[in-house]
């Protein structure tokens, strides 16, 4: 298969490269803008590809999809605004690093980890395609429930310093995620008579409000003049800073590999992907790395964990091309485009139309190279963004945030929800609650609730223990909880000892 991909590479025309460059430009811009994502841009581009050759259409659409996560990391690091839900965990450490004057380093790490993650995804895709059916079918309800549960356990354990408030935030998120129709019974819950709440809390206005608008409000309200915590304006980053960021990925190579694999696994699990991969990878990283007190305060390993997981497109593509089951929203749009061009995804795709699969792989690979190279080259200039005076930056972030909330579905209610969530997010941080825990609950809560009942209905309580993947995750969770308890006891013992 590798030889065939290389042959397909060799036959790529200059026009194909041109199309991919256009795709990367569009992908990076929509990735950067809060609220807008690859799926919206792809959906808008589909009609334009109608008259195109199917292969070129795939190259264009996959270039958009491949470059948007890296484009989103720029906004996440520089203005604490997740360009896409895929980048939400990048904000947690990337933005504090930028505020400490290490934006160049964070951008270097994000670009490298994002490209590396895409590469791992492609390798896994190539390796897994022959036995893809078995792998995809190994994910059922108990696996999805335990994956979500494991992510929440890891998160709670990292919030050791403010365990109590982290738990309150988690509970609030779990309650809020129950709004809307109940996917198990089909009934409506907590809609308070408004149709807007039928779909539940919409993820984009919630994330944009919680991170972008609340940060914008904070910048304008606290207006410290210039980059907070740094006396002088942060000087423009140098290429040596960017190089440091690249080196950091190799220094923490196992973390990078672990996070990429998590991203791929989440991608393979049908219909979850999206924002789950990066938050889950981040929370697992908090438990697997040594010395984690700086997580969430500007630890470069947090950026590695998030960015290597969010661009593992190869995983998303496995169920999409093998079964026609989208691995993420982007893949759902891609699926529509394939069908529009008369290509039927499924087990026979690799036999009847292997060129399409090679095209997907080439597009993901080249678009990742292009966007990562752009970030690495532009990082010293981009890193000046946090030097913009706080109130100007805050105003721009508020405008883009509210507009991003609106532009997702062109719904003015989304814009007002974005603003309300922004104000609440400001208080949330002000009083020491955890936005991370709230977001984790919103992202993973529904997945957990649905799959709990589906497991109970189809397999009974034993369903969680008789299958290998859930059993391993449960054992790991128990181990992590016990380890955390012992660590806390040891720490409190050290603090109370007379020496």
């Amino acid at each position, binding site marked *: 298969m590798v030889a065939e991909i290389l042959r397909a590479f060799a036959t790529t025309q200059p026009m194909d490269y041109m199309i991919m460059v256009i795709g990367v430009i569009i992908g990076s811009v929509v990735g950067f803008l809060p609220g807008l994502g690859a799926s919206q841009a792809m959906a808008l581009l589909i009609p334009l590809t109608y008259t195109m050759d199917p292969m070129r259409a795939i190259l264009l659409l996959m270039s958009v999809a491949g470059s948007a996560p890296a484009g989103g990391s720029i906004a996440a690091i520089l203005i604490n605004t997740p360009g896409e839900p895929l980048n939400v965990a990048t904000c947690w450490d990337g933005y504090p690093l930028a505020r400490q004057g290490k934006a160049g380093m964070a951008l270097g790490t994000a670009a490298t980890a994002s490209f590396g993650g895409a590469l791992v995804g492609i390798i896994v895709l190539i390796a897994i395609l022959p036995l893809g059916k078995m792998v995809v079918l190994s994910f059922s309800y108990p696996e999805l429930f335990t994956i979500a549960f494991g992510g929440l356990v890891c998160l709670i354990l990292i919030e050791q310093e403010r365990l109590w408030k982290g738990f309150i935030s988690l509970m609030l998120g779990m309650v809020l995620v*129950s709004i809307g129709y109940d996917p198990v019974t089909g*009934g409506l819950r907590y809609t308070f008579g408004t149709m807007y709440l039928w779909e539940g809390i919409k993820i984009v206005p919630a994330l944009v409000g919680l991170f972008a608008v609340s940060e914008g409000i904070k910048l304008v309200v606290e207006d410290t003049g210039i980059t907070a915590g740094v006396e002088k304006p942060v000087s423009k980053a140098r290429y040596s800073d960017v190089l440091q960021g690249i080196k950091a990925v190799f220094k923490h190579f196992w973390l990078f590999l672990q996070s990429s694999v998590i991203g791929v696994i989440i991608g393979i699990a049908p219909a979850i992907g999206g924002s789950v991969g990066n938050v889950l990878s981040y929370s697992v990283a908090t438990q697997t790395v040594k010395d984690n007190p700086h997580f969430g305060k500007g630890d470069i390993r947090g950026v590695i964990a998030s960015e290597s997981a969010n661009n593992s497109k190869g995983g998303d593509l496995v169920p999409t091309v093998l079964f026609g089951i989208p691995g993420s929203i982007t893949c759902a749009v891609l699926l529509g485009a394939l069908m529009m061009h008369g290509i039927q995804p499924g087990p026979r795709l690799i036999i009847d139309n292997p060129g399409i699969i090679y095209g997907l792989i080439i597009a993901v690979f080249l678009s990742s190279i292009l966007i990562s190279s752009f970030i690495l080259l532009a990082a010293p200039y981009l890193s000046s963004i946090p030097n913009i005076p706080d109130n100007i930056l805050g105003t721009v972030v*508020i405008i883009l945030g509210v*507009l991003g909330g609106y532009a997702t579905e062109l719904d003015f209610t989304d*814009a007002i929800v974005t603003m309300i969530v922004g104000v609440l997010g*400001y208080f949330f941080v002000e009083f020491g609650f955890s936005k991370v825990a709230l977001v984790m609950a919103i992202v993973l809560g529904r997945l957990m609730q649905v799959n709990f009942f589906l497991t109970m209905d189809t397999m009974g309580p034993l369903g969680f223990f008789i299958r290998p993947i859930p059993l391993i995750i449960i054992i790991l969770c128990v181990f992590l909880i016990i380890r955390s308890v012992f660590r806390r006891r040891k720490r409190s013992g050290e603090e109370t000892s007379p020496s």
Partner: protein
Amino acid sequence: MSKGLFGQNRDKLIFDVFLVIVALVFLFNSFELNFRSWFFPGVFSITLLMMAVIQTLMDLYPAQKMSQFQDLTSTQVKDRSSTKSLKAKMQGKNVRLVLVTLSMLAFYLIFRFVTIYIAIPVLCVLLLRFLGKKSWFTIGLVATSMDVFIYVFFQLLLETSL
């Protein structure tokens, strides 16, 4: 709340009470659901309610201590400047927050009923001139660049109706 319960502690308590109300609303509304629909939100809202009540009590206790301490300082310690400046800072912050929220509301209303291209300059004037004391030139530059950026990317490229 006791006299002198000021600034951050009072705001914290208000937020805690808000969380308690949220938990109560969700709990009371969960009673009309059948067991399967109730299970997760019901359990989580009960947990949230208990935790939010405990949090309120925890915040109320140091808050009362703080107000007692304030009384102590007001009678026994002559130098009250630090307490006063902290209080003034908190009040200033709250005033700014209210102004930012009102500016955002104005931005939304103009965006909703007029156009985004007028809403942006208005928000820039409110936040950058009245709160940020920036020059008209800077405000003009920011507002124009944002308008052009949004017109090019949202309206021309992405064909978003604004």
